[in-house]
């Protein structure tokens, strides 16, 4: 893993490290189940205090992004951070809006869109029935 920390940009190093790990997980550079470098290894690589790495890993564990397995190391969580319900709703709403706009652009009417959505919800198509 390649991280770049800036000691003089006004942000504690552990926060910078956390951000970069989070970013790596979000973008898929770090995948679920993958192991992160050990505390000592990463500290030496970045030439920072091991306490900084410990703090970053520990905070990310609190957020649910990492799993610290005793004697083994820090792993990216299988379950992603439990987003708050509000976050989930907000993201869903945006996706729905985007889909609706797209279908409208293709010429479908509102009641047609509504019927399609209901059908999918209550009568899932055969291909998706095995969810």
């Amino acid at each position, binding site marked *: 893993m390649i991280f770049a920390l800036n*000691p*003089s940009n006004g942000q504690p190093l552990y926060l910078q490290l956390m951000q970069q790990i989070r970013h790596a997980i979000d973008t898929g550079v770090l995948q679920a189940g993958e192991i992160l470098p050990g505390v000592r290894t990463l500290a030496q690589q970045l030439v920072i205090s091991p306490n*900084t790495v410990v703090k970053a890993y520990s905070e990310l564990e609190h957020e649910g992004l990492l799993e610290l397995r005793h004697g083994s190391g820090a792993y990216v969580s299988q379950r992603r951070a439990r987003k708050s319900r509000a976050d989930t709703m907000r993201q869903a709403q945006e996706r729905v809006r985007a889909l609706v706009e797209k279908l409208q652009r293709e010429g479908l009417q509102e009641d047609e869109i509504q019927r399609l959505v209901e059908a999918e919800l209550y009568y899932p198509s055969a291909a998706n029935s095995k969810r």
Partner: protein
Amino acid sequence: MTTNPVIETCDLTKQFGKFEAVSGLNLRVGTGRITGFLGRNGAGKSSTIRMLLGITRASSGSGTILGRPINNPAENCASRRHIAYVAEDKQTYAYMTVAQVIAFTRSFYDDWDLELERQLLQQFELPLQRKVKALSKGMRTKLALLLALSRHSRLLILDEPSEGLDPVSIEELLQALIAAAADGTSVFFSSHQIAEVERVADQVCIIDRGKLVADTSLDQIRQEFRRITIGFSTERPPVEFTGDFIGAVRTDGRQVSMVATRNAEAIVERVHRLGAASVETAPVSLRELFLAVVKEGPSDALV
């Protein structure tokens, strides 16, 4: 600090005649951290370290190291079994060979690690059969480092460890310090290399003229310390700028500048209400902080 400090002093003072090298020092160094000890030449760093190790007696005041009082020779000796030290001089016995010095030092410590010794010997490329008097300064420093790092000590004290080392060797030194810290060793090192301290230290203590003028974590400096520069388009209002500042408040014509240690936003708010034309905040580097508390003379000390 919830756990016991690894070093603690109470009004520690050292006088040489009329000169106070260390003046009422109240130091608290936490366990399991890397603490940088910064100060100008002659600020009292070496004197403090020598008092902690029983090499010099305190004129007054007290202290503990690894929980034991430093003023008691027997107790201090007991704590030294778990302390690794690299002195400012970094000299070892000129008449011995590298191998002999290592064997000599090894015989005193139970926490010696032969594997670490072997690794460091290889990394530092020290010639085992050469006499210490025939070593270059850089090699002598590396030997002194090896003698301190080939152990699992509880506390590692280094007095200007990077002096006389080239940049590559300094990197090796920092790597070794980090490895020791990852191992659970508390590291306390004095240095002039502010950039190195800034990268690697968890906590920094700044000493000036024998007194502690700053004791703060690097996280706090980055997150909370801010240089606030205020400009007025009219005459500067005759107010006292007060707040949690470190170092002196500088004024220059219609500008005022200070380093706030917390609540920079609140200060900015207040200043805006005073009708400032421009207010800028910027993070404070360790170098800037050091110069602010040391150059400006005796002023607000933050501990």
